[in-house]
């Protein structure tokens, strides 16, 4: 029996691995094959530094959208990462054991809510609230708030796993020296999970810069370099989602090139953070 099953199962594993690899190659090929000709026609510099996006006049500049994407992403990370860390510490160190299961269940549920629902919630609750402070309400701030909420579940569960991996012995040593529980977390646990936190930031970055659906609904979608967090902005992904359906020719190629830019951003962030980790390890 084993003699027959073994090669079949091995073959299945190989096929599965090959599918993943081919899909990745396929995606990159599509972006490059359509994006490159577009870039060549528009000019890489014009494309990246142009401040106007007017498909009807064949003017394609994505600088405002780069600003919007980076603004929303960094804003969301700035809000979401520390909040996630604090919630994880709360669950692991403060919350009574019998309630943990429920809160973790709720957080997992948060991860399962479709992004369009977060968008609805942003439109219904966040946007009107911001509009009371400053019009129009549909703004970069709204996008930051919605996206930071969306990266929370991942942040919390990753940090929680990290905190759980810190040995009870080490915490006991700190407590036995007279340190308080919260300062034990700060002085012993957080330094221990630095690598986990960095991985969490990479994931949060990917999720935040890639989110389109919820952002389209709340960000306002004006192509402009944001003056403040109250400005209406259009992100790179939002732009693609809004226009891909009807884009043809050079317009379509420009959108593909946008995908290429996003792809490069994420690769750069990965390299940057893994370099940072490497430097820390060598120390």
């Amino acid at each position, binding site marked *: 029996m084993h003699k027959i099953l073994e090669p079949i199962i091995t073959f299945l594993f190989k096929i599965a691995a090959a599918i993943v690899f081919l899909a990745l190659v396929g995606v990159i090929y599509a972006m490059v094959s359509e994006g490159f000709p577009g870039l060549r026609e528009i000019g890489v510099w014009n494309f990246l530094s142009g401040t106007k996006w007017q498909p009807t006049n064949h003017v394609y500049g994505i600088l405002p959208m780069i600003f919007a994407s980076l603004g929303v992403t960094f804003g969301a990370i700035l809000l979401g990462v520390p909040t996630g860390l604090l919630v994880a510490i709360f669950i692991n160190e403060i919350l009574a*054991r019998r309630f943990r299961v429920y809160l973790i269940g709720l957080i997992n549920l948060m991860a399962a809510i479709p992004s369009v629902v977060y968008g609805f919630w942003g439109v219904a609750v966040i946007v009107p609230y911001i509009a009371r402070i400053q019009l129009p309400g549909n703004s970069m701030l709204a996008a930051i708030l919605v996206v930071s909420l969306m990266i929370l579940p991942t942040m919390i569960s990753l940090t929680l796993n990290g905190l759980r991996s810190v*040995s009870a*012995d*080490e915490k*006991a*040593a*700190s*407590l*036995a*020296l*007279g*340190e*308080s529980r919260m*300062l034990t977390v700060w*002085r*012993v646990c957080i*330094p*221990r999970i630095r690598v986990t936190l960095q991985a969490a930031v990479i994931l949060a970055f990917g999720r935040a810069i890639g989110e389109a659906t919820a952002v389209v609904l709340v960000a306002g979608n004006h192509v402009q370099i944001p003056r403040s967090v109250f400005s209406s902005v259009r992100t790179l992904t939002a732009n693609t989602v809004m226009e891909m359906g009807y884009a043809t020719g050079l317009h379509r190629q420009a959108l593909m090139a946008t995908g290429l830019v996003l792809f490069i951003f994420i690769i750069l962030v990965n390299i940057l953070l893994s370099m940072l980790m490497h430097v820390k390890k060598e120390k």
Partner: protein
Amino acid sequence: MADIVATNFNLFYGDFQALKDINMTLKERQLTAFIGPSGCGKSTFLRSINRMNDLIENVKITGSLIMGDLNIIETNKLSVLRKRVGMVFQKPNPFSMSIYNNVAYGPRTHGIRQRAVLDELVEKSLRSAALWDELKDNLHKSALSLSGGQQQRLCIARSLAVEPDVLLLDEPTSALDPVSTAKIEELLEEIKTEHTIVMVTHNMQQAARISDRVAFFLSGELIEMGDTYQIFSQPQKEKTSDYITGRFG
């Protein structure tokens, strides 16, 4: 410094009574060894002395446990209690930081910030733990790079750095080789001139070698306590004699 006195001390984990009516005096500047089979309550009692049992849910305590002017059961100043009563664990558990920062951790907890004072405490503590000569040129190396025996001595140095009156040790050598064990026993004999030491051990020879007094626990009860020589040569209770001659446990 003062004796530690337990009177009618009971401890329950939920419905299970882990310690029954313990009455004993732990004399200052002496090394008392707790012996007894696994699960007899000796570690539980040890951990009551610096309230590490607080970490476990559903623990209930009755009776009294007093050290001089300090009511150990009632105090709400855990930090003060634990500064006076330090603890070394079974498995070496240094922090994953430098040797220096390990030893300076406790003093920093209690508010010491001046570099010179910290330097002095670190040197003094490492000397007491017989580690200074080995490590003085590598104070900024990670503590995790040390051998098991060195790590355990570092943990002792870390506890000494807050200048406690009492040092509790929970089977401190059970994870170590004989040479490291001998070094730790040697240093315990030295520091007991300035500290009250309470040690849980499974090793009868170790108790005989280094302790002044021995307390024998069985099923949550203190069966017998006395001078080490007396316990090992003329135990008063049959259960004690059965245990130390290896008839059970």
